[in-house]
């Protein structure tokens, strides 16, 4: 009687390992670094990044993957994590300047991760706004989505999903930096 119970307990712990993990610190990519340098754009400042109006606060704080989540290291806000991801790219390229008249702001519009038995899906979206000396020159909603082969086992499926979700932040920033309209808006 005891053995089956222990086995069941172990299986449950494998499939439902609920916890909160800090998100990986954003790292710049050589692709974005070169993209920024080749575009010959000036330094930029970062403005407010927040949850888009009308959306539930929980969207900015928590994605739920089988009871587990990742927490943003920047004030617990995913919108601020997006800002940090963009800052890391600009910093690595030498394009981040707090005194710049070009200011990028963002509103988080979508944040989701699911780890199914077979397939996992993660989505992230934001509306980016660029102002030059206070005048809006760019506003565009952008989104990225990723799917992958998931697993029945929580010990595998949960970290996989949370890693994939975290990776979307770099991909969304890449989507912004490679947008020709964005580049045109920030060029001197």
């Amino acid at each position: 009687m005891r053995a089956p119970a222990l086995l069941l307990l172990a299986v449950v712990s494998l499939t439902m390992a609920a916890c909160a993990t800090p998100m990986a610190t954003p790292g710049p990519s050589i692709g974005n670094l070169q993209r920024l340098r080749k575009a010959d754009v000036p330094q930029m400042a970062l403005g407010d990044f927040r949850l888009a109006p009308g959306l539930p606060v929980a969207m900015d704080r928590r994605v739920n993957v089988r009871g587990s989540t990742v927490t943003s290291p920047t004030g617990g806000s995913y919108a601020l994590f997006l800002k940090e991801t963009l800052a890391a790219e600009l910093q690595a390229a030498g394009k981040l300047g707090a005194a710049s008249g070009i200011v990028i702001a963002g509103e988080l519009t979508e944040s989701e991760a699911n780890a199914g038995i077979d397939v996992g899906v993660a989505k992230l979206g934001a509306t980016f706004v660029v102002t030059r000396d206070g005048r809006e020159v760019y506003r565009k909603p952008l989104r990225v989505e990723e799917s992958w082969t998931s697993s029945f086992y929580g010990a595998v499926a949960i970290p996989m999903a949370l890693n994939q979700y975290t990776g979307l932040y770099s991909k969304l920033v890449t989507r912004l930096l490679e947008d020709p309209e964005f580049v045109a808006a920030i060029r001197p």
Partner: protein
Amino acid sequence: MRGDSAEIVMGGIMTFAKTRLRALMVSLCLGLASLVFGGQSALAASYVDPALKDVPAEARVTKASPQPVQILFQFQTDGAPNERATKYLKTLVIDTVTASGLFSEVSETPVASGAVISVTINNVVKDLKDATAQGFVTGLTFGLKGSLVTDHYTCTVEYVGGPDAEKISRSVNHAIHTTLGIKTPPEGMVKSKNIAEAVTTMARQAVSNSLNQVAADPAFGGIVPAAPAPAAPAEAPAPAAPAATPVPAELPEPPLTPAPTPGQ
């Protein structure tokens, strides 16, 4: 590498998905005793695939006047960032690039010339169902029916000499084989002291080989030895051998019985 054994366990084996799952399944069946060992199981042994070795001194590319370079490094699991492993291996990767002598300084911040080197090590996860099943059986038989799990890695080094320079990119494949329970290791393997040593050896060899291949590109401007010794057996038909060209998305199984002469 630095850090106590707990950090090594957390930063090492526990970051590599396939091995972790197998160890977990073994632990599940072995019960409390192996849980005490953090799910790693005292029955585990790790082997770095011998198909890829350290770059021999006579094959190393040199640079007449090394310049500073900015480095970016990321460890990935199936293409997604893995911060724990990135932190664990970052110092080793920077040290390996520095030790190549190809750069006068390796910095994490931008350098005047705009030169950048990016190192990515991707732990490719595959056959999870098979790993699960084998690990379960190993645990259920208390290790009497052992199993072998292979973690595959693709290391990509990309280099740009400046803002307008063309990117040079090279990738190599590597692998770590881990036996759990009573299992004869693949022929020609040299056992690592522990999983931490296996991981650091894998990373050092993968980075130094791909970096040397980048430096051998004419666009890099390095001095290539007249008759470079191959870093791996020429006829190794496998993913674990260095790949000068971009590696395929789907990796074939690495050779488990290659080198007649083991190891490093």
